[in-house]
């Protein structure tokens, strides 16, 4: 196996170096490696249809034949391993003849489907047939198998199948899903979902990507294209923080399908390359493209006339907005104007928006979606690490090579399916120990070596407990002990009240398993902690992150190479939002607004004085709006009415505002309340960049021309600014890009430098005071139980097939999943005597919501006392059941979990 990375070499027992002769050339290779790998590493291309470097050679196609001296029959090079003294020849006429014969075997059962086949032109069988020049194929026999169209997404035409098994292998070995299998049917081997049922899996589409023929096709693009007609544009996925690169294929200004680097064509490579990512994308990225060409897209600005939103020409809408904003600014000053922006916008859009608000409108009332949770991470890690900009400490490759991974508060399979493949790779190939702390038995929890099925809401107790166990058992990292003896001492004293028993009781995990997990983490060489919403978007989210810093500290993760603490981001550009100053407390580059020097720097660069204004965040904006202090609110891509629970009073606040401008590709709940709705483009119609959670700044490229008259966000800001008399003139997103590059040197890179972590500032100043307060066990601290009468915890969360509300506009994703159903564990369902298809009535302590009736789905993974509702759907308005709370430090709005009571519904 390939051992390119030094770390891998340490990890994997490298075989002995041997020498063999290939085509007369002496070659060195590691013993036990696949001959095919060695050959392709030399640049020799041998036809192979079942081989892909991401999984173990399978050897079904019989094409990769080579001549090995001493063997009579041709040898399949993929399954053969190299041996010392081997003499291999590849280009002999006998081999060509043998390969030709193997090919004819495949051809003889293949139907004459080229005219209707979607793979025609991107088909390995076609390529080789053409290359070999076969001529007549004897003994043709057709399979006549009906096409399996039962699945929602993929069609299986087994007549075309060449039984290479790539789909099965990629599913089994890369995705660890194992949804597909071979089946003997009517004398032919076919590929089908397990137990010959309709395929219902994660729909990552990797099987579709690696299929070398047209046996697996995609329902959403079926028959709409031929590969040679498509224009391919590489861009960045707009759904999660992974920053996957999509190849968007378009025909006539319409996105027809989305592919990625992973195809059967990308098969040649070293299997160590998998550590650099298998190049695949998830179901959201692959099948969520219809949102761009959705009929629901806004094509013209809408303006409220006689209480109704009517389509208006751009000029009128722009004039109206410019005039009203100018007037409000003149009459009431900048403090009457506020702005909200979404983390789905590009860096360029966010940068220009905050500039527009801060120097054009003269206000610092600009905030973004990071307020829903990510700011906890930013605030806590900024404080601990002493850096301005926060990103993951480890890159994806390091996660792949990690020897211990601790995942907490994240159902990584559902939220970051592609990043998840890294964890799976670490599990499968590098034999990493994976600890998943989650009350829900998620997919990754089932795969993990250690699943800590903790009690609902006891995550912070678990973290603190683990810290204590490590300290108690003397597992604390030596370097840390030497470097920060005081801090360790502070921690020891702060956690004095915690013991392994209390932790076991609080979390419901037996003491020995806790100890085992602590030991794995503390003794790891390359331990990686991954955490997300589950601990940041809930009460004490800020403290939880600081607790994790403690855990990482005592495990020495900050000291070891390839180890670290990593926050995952739900939205695609959450990092960019904060880096671009899309939060009221930050200027671009993560500089604090309240810092006069930082403000001075930008005042100079932007040639406009920025006064010392208070940072007004989203909850305050809503408050001020309710009080009538905000006269104009400019909302870009954000949807507070649709996202926040009713208790936040977003709708009421908006109704008090004189001018609500919403800029969005779709008409959202918030848009319906607006006075002007400006049609913005989606990611596919503009240039720009997204910052992934790793800190890579990935380019967003224009895939198609803007739909209707929609415009890129930056263009709208720029034109408005021009109309209002403070020109922010940019000819293209590239110019904004250049300005950002000047303002934040080194920002635009796809290979970010490792995050420098400087803990001494944090640990030496005030840590002694702050840490004990976190460890003090407060009553009701662990939220294990809610108020009396509300025994269930309702969690709003993301599911695999959706991302925010954006993806619900994608027709394909809605076909895959549109179930606005309450997920309930089997134990609870039994107790409440519920069966699938029943409805339940939910009540909660939140004010003025009443009861909400919702259908249920029994989800075996859920523990008792926990119910889950996908946050993407607003009908029924389950989100309103939660009473929002504010974090006292970071002012993050917690609205993703709360106590509810469940009663069986009428029907």
């Amino acid at each position, binding site marked *: 196996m390939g051992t390119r990375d030094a770390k891998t070499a340490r990890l994997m027992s490298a075989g002995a170096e041997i020498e063999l002769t290939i085509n007369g050339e002496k070659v060195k290779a590691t013993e036990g490696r696949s001959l095919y790998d060695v050959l392709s590493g030399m640049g020799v291309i041998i036809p192979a249809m079942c081989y892909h470097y991401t999984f173990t050679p399978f050897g079904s196609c019989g094409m990769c034949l080579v001549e090995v001296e001493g063997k009579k029959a041709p040898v399949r090079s993929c399954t053969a391993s190299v041996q010392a003294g081997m003499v291999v020849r590849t280009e002999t006429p006998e081999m060509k003849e043998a390969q030709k014969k193997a090919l004819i075997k495949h051809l003889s059962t293949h139907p004459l489907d080229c005219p209707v086949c979607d793979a025609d032109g991107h088909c390995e069988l076609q390529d080789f047939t053409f290359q070999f020049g076969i001529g007549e194929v004897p003994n043709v026999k057709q399979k006549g198998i009906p096409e399996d169209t039962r699945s929602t997404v993929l069609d299986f035409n087994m007549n075309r199948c060449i039984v290479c098994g790539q789909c099965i292998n990629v599913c089994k070995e890369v995705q660890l899903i194992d949804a597909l299998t071979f089946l003997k049917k009517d004398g032919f081997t076919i590929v089908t979902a397990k137990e010959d049922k309709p395929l219902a899996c994660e729909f990552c589409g990797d099987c579709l990507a690696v299929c070398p023929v047209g046996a697996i096709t995609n329902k959403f693009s079926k*028959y709409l294209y031929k590969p*040679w007609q498509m224009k391919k544009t590489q861009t960045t996925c707009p759904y999660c923080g992974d920053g996957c690169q999509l190849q968007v294929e378009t025909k006539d200004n319409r996105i027809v399908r989305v592919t990625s680097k992973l195809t059967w064509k990308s098969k040649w490579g070293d299997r160590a390359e998998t550590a650099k990512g298998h190049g695949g994308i998830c179901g959201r990225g692959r099948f969520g493209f219809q949102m761009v060409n959705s009929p629901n897209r806004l094509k013209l600005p809408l303006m409220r006339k006689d209480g109704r939103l009517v389509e208006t020409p751009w000029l009128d809408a722009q004039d109206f907005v410019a005039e009203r904003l100018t007037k409000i600014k003149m009459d009431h000053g900048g403090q009457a104007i506020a702005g909200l922006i979404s983390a789905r916008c590009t860096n360029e859009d966010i940068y220009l928006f905050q500039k527009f608000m801060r120097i054009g409108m003269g206000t610092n009332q600009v905030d973004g979606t990071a307020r829903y949770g990510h700011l906890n991470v930013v605030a806590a890690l900024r404080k601990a690490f002493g850096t301005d900009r926060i990103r993951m400490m480890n890159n994806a490759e390091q996660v792949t090579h990690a020897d211990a991974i601790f995942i907490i508060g994240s159902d990584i399979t559902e939220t970051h399916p592609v990043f998840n493949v890294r964890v799976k790779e670490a599990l499968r190939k590098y034999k990493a120990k994976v600890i998943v702390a989650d009350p829900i038995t998620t997919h990754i929890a089932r795969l993990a070596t250690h699943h800590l099925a903790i009690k609902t809401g006891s995550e912070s107790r678990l973290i603190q407990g683990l810290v204590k166990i490590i300290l108690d058992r003397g597992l604390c990292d030596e370097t840390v002990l030497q470097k920060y003896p005081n801090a360790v001492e502070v921690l020891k004293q702060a956690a004095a009240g915690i013991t392994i028993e209390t932790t076991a009781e609080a979390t419901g995990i037996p003491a020995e398993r806790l100890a085992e997990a602590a030991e794995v983490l503390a003794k790891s060489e390359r331990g990686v902690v991954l955490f997300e919403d589950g601990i940041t978007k809930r009460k004490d989210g800020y403290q939880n992150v600081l607790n994790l810093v403690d855990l990482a500290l005592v495990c020495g993760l900050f000291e070891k190479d390839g180890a670290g603490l990593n926050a995952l981001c739900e939205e695609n550009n959450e990092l960019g939002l904060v880096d671009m100053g899309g939060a009221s407390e930050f200027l671009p580059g993560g500089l604090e607004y309240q810092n006069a020097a930082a403000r001075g720097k930008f005042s100079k660069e932007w040639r406009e004085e920025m006064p010392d204004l208070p940072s007004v965040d989203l909850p305050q904006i809503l408050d001020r709006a309710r009080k009538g202090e905000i006269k104009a609110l400019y909302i870009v891509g954000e949807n507070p009415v649709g996202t926040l629970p009713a208790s936040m009073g977003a709708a009421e606040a908006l109704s008090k505002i004189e001018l609500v401008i919403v800029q969005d590709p779709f008409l959202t709940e918030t848009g319906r309340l607006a006075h002007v709705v400006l049609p913005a483009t989606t990611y596919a119609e503009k240039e720009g960049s997204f910052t992934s959670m790793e800190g890579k700044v990935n380019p967003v490229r224009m895939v198609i021309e803007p739909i209707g008259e929609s415009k890129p966000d930056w263009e709208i800001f720029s034109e408005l600014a021009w109309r209002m008399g403070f020109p922010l003139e940019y000819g293209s997103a590239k110019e904004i890009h250049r300005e950002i590059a000047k303002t934040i040197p080194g920002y635009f890179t796809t290979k970010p430098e490792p995050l420098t972590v400087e803990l001494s500032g944090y640990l030496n100043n005030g840590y002694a005071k702050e840490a004990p307060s976190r460890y003090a066990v407060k009553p009701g601290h662990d939220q294990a139980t809610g108020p009396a009468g509300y025994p269930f915890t309702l969690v709003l969360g993301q599911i695999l097939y959706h991302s925010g509300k954006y993806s619900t506009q994608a027709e394909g994703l809605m076909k895959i999943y549109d179930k606005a159903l309450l997920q309930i564990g089997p134990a609870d369902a039994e107790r409440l005597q519920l069966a699938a298809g029943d409805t339940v009535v939910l009540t909660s302590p939140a004010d003025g919501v009443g009861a909400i009736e919702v259908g249920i789905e029994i989800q075996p993974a859920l523990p008792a006392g926990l119910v889950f509702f996908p946050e993407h759907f607003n009908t029924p308005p389950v989100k309103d059941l939660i009473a929002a709370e504010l974090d006292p430090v970071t002012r993050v709005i917690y609205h993703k979990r709360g106590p509810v009571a469940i009663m069986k519904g009428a029907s």
Partner: protein
Amino acid sequence: MKPGRNLIQKILMLEIVRAMWVVFRHMFGKGITFQYPHVKRTLPDGHRGALGLLKYDDGVERCVGCDLCEAACPSHCIKVVSEQVPDKPLVRYASEFYIDMTKCVFCGFCVEACPVNALGMTKLYEYSTENKRDLYFDKKKLYEVGETYFADAKAYLVAHRQEQADETAIQYRYKFPFTVLTGKKE
């Protein structure tokens, strides 16, 4: 054969007389012009005229929307939009088919490319119009041409060895797969 230059020839203008005699003889030859449009020339079978889309004898459209004609066209005048027949799963057809006759170079490559012989060239050449947009033939118009001049198109295919002349010869017709859901063949 070099021209003689003697005096007699010069004086008598013999070469002019010889030429006049040729012209005079031609006066009694058969006329070769004819009165178009009252009389039209007979075009050979292989003549490359306007394109038409063809149907099978039972009225089913031959075209399966494979877009190969679009790829083969040297002047990029063909546009095919294909999709699944709404009520027949797995049957591919061209929902829209355009040939821009103003761009067409009448090379016949599309016919040569078509793997189901859905296109044929007819002897139609009189489709001039006052409105340029009429020359953007859509699917309806193309089937109209194909139906009206089916014999021409068939003769064209035979003349260019795209199809056998006799009906008993193998006539390719793509057989669509059927779905497990209905289990019946289309």
